[in-house]
């Protein structure tokens, strides 16, 4: 019998006890980094953030607003990496500038819709029945309008601008968040641990902030992440229809619109504008999936 085996047969010397927080940290790290999807999403979103930063600092090779009509419809070259558009502007610089618009709209729009949804949804779910009915009635009425129609109404009222698009994003996604939060709150409300908190004297505000919201946050963040791509395409779509960002401001939607108009002569314009759209969409979708895995405490141990 080897000397390190005790009489009881258990190998005591070699088993180093794992302390709980070490186990936790190790598994969390694994859940976060093992999946290639996570790396892909980090890469894609990193590129997007870098573009926005470059645009913010103005480090693009050409002025995205500089017209050069003699140079129009240039194919991709060393001088113009993604060619030039119908007014001779550098497409690459315009795409980089457009990322700022896309990020602003998606983060501010979805972020505020999420916060509002959290507030209204918990009130509807945890508050009195009549308030719940009233909130649902208003939101359902708003939802009967098709998004585009709603967008046209809002644009007519406040004129096309970047903040109008943010408003459209909030109005069109809010009811989804409210519904998600409300249903989750309703189902949590009758769970035993909420009853336990109530039996210990916690008031509604304490219960909602300490116990309901932490339980809703992870599905909400996941949905929000998966919504961001839709919002980016919504901006592109609205700008494409002339309801969103007005030319000459650079956005992926306006570039798409130009590309679509001249699709026979300059297909690269269309490709150049859709590539960032696709990669941003994928990036946020993957991030949503990674978040789902990471935020679920039940997956920590697996």
């Amino acid at each position: 019998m080897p000397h390190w085996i005790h009489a009881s047969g258990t190998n005591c010397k070699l088993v180093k006890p794992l302390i709980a927080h070490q186990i936790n940290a190790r598994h969390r790290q694994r859940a976060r980094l093992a999946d290639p999807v996570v790396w892909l999403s980090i890469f894609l979103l990193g590129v997007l953030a870098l573009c926005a930063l470059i645009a913010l600092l103005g480090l693009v090779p050409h002025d995205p607003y500089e017209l050069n009509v003699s140079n129009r419809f240039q194919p991709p070259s060393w001088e113009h990496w993604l060619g030039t558009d119908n007014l001779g502007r550098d497409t690459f610089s315009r795409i980089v500038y457009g990322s700022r618009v896309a990020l602003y709209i998606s983060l501010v729009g979805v972020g505020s819709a999420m916060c509002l949804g959290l507030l209204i949804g918990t009130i509807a779910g945890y508050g009195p029945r009549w308030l719940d009915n009233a909130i649902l009635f208003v939101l359902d009425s708003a939802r009967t309008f098709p998004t585009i129609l709603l967008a046209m109404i809002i644009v007519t009222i406040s004129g096309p601008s970047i903040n109008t698009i943010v408003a459209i994003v909030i109005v069109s996604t809010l009811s989804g968040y409210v519904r998600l939060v409300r249903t989750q709150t309703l189902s949590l409300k009758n769970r035993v641990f909420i009853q336990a908190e109530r039996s210990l004297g916690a008031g509604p505000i304490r219960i909602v902030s300490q116990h309901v919201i932490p339980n809703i946050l992870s599905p909400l963040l996941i949905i929000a992440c998966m919504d961001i791509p839709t919002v980016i395409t919504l901006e592109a779509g609205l700008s494409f229809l002339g309801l969103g960002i007005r030319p000459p401001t650079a956005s992926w939607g306006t570039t798409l619109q130009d590309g679509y108009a001249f699709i026979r002569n300059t297909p690269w314009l269309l490709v150049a504008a859709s590539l960032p759209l696709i990669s941003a969409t994928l990036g946020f979708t993957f991030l949503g999936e990674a978040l789902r895995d990471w935020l679920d405490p039940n997956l920590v141990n697996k």
Partner: protein
Amino acid sequence: MLANNLDIEGLSISFSNEGEELMALRQVSLSVPRHSIVGIVGESGCGKSTLISSIFRLPMENAIIKCGRIHVNGTDVLTLDEEEMNRLRGKEIAMIFQDPFTALNPVLTIGSQLIDIQYRQAISRKEKKQNVIAALQQVGIDRASDRFNQYPHQFSGGMLQRICIAMALLVKPTLLVADEPTTALDATTELQILALIREFHRSTGASVLLVSHHLSVIAELCDRVVVMYAGEIVEEGLSQDVFGAPLHPYTNLLMQCDPARIKEKARHLPSIPGTVSRVVKTSTECIFVHRCPQAVSRCSELVPETYSVEGRTVKCHLISNE
């Protein structure tokens, strides 16, 4: 100093169910004396849970409190407004639930939940954490400071129930209500948890109101016992009296059905024939008459009174004959 931690007088609660009124509790009166453990036994559906949730004034949505009074340490619970009630909950009274797996928030670490529960105390977070670790050690959780950061699903059922008891330790109630605290646990864990509850009672001096299906648990732990049937208290007294010589036929039958007390080998476990009746209108007969082996003609004609016999109460006609 008040003599009782809990006084319930003539409590009647009904449920409105699709236009029908279900009388879940009828004229229930019971007391929990200071520093005592009182047990409630009875079949499922006899109103035990309704009774204890009404102490916390957290009944089901369709429950209507018809009449009666509930005094916790002399305060009439039913007349308090919501804020005063919240001050009472978790200070004077605390509760341990049946299923420890659902009684803790699954997305928060147990440490943060146990710290959170001390929000009423004006002490620093560090002191709160020390309190938590002390409480966890007191309920027998090893490596408490390591397990502090774990989530509820990383614990076993017995551990979770210990954590729930630690929670009760942290709020220091004068009355602890335990709603079948060991039903979801296995037999060995059950003993440990019961020992902990007894230890809790001894060290803090708090009273305990214990609800259980297990007669042996009640007999072992409780000073007094209350036997409930179909929303009424049928027998009440010191537990050695009630279990030693049951006076009500229902208590008698319950004891005959307790597997722990069966001496002879049998193919089938004994049971009381029939089910708990749903009472929808004021009855003119004894509620137990249809299942009672000792029923006489008077039982189906007259509602029995509650008789006092040697420090215990029994609601049965047979007593009056003696």
